[in-house]
């Protein structure tokens, strides 16, 4: 089943404006009952980090996010979906990624946004490197087993 919407997918170095991104989902429409947005931020890990530097695979990043979005559109009746993923150096406290899903009903919007994030974590070609608070370059962030488990739960999941 093809999704009945055109997801908006961008990768960019610049910060994004959550209000503008989610407003675009509902502008001029009155058939949307729920918008769920997720914003992922750079944590300082108890003061250890100054920033995260995100490397990405241009072209594949957008294509892979598009494939994940198409899966979400097949699973849930979405009215709109926005994904913005930043790359480059992102200071602690700043936003890294935004996912916003719009639907008639809240459960679809919640589940689709959560699904998008779980798959972005494990399948979108981005890699994080630590910039330490003391000004030195840290190591590459290792993939978390918890993220693989979070992705795996969707294979047994049927939308209500």
């Amino acid at each position: 089943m093809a999704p009945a919407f055109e997801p908006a997918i961008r990768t960019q170095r610049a910060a994004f404006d959550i209000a503008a991104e989610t407003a675009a989902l509902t502008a001029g429409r009155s058939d949307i009952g729920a918008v769920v947005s997720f914003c992922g931020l750079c944590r300082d890990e108890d003061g250890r980090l100054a920033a995260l530097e995100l490397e990405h695979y241009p072209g594949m990043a957008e294509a892979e996010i598009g494939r994940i979005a198409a899966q979400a559109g097949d699973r849930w009746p979405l009215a709109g979906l926005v994904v913005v993923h930043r790359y480059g150096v992102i200071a602690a406290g700043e936003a890294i990624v935004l996912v916003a899903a719009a639907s008639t009903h809240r459960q679809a919007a919640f589940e689709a946004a959560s699904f998008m994030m779980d798959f972005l974590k494990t399948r979108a070609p981005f890699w994080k490197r630590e910039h330490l608070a003391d000004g030195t370059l840290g190591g590459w962030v290792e993939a978390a087993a918890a993220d693989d488990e979070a992705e795996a739960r969707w294979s047994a999941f049927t939308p209500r």
Partner: protein
Amino acid sequence: MKLKYFAWVRERIGTPEEEVELPHEVETVRDLLDWLKARGDGYAEALRFPEAIRVAIDQEHVRHDERIAGAREIALFPPMTGG
């Protein structure tokens, strides 16, 4: 064929991308990883644990048993940590 490397795979190999002529007997992703490992210390270091390497052919994830005939661009990288 163009090879692209990302994150610590890129750092250890020492270049973000290169053009290679693959010998006839390199048929799968696994063959490619073995062939690359023999190209030098940086490659050997990057690909020491080949099962940890993720691979995309023409910007789509593939398994290591995937055949590479016809590929224009193959990318090697660590497990993703975006989001």
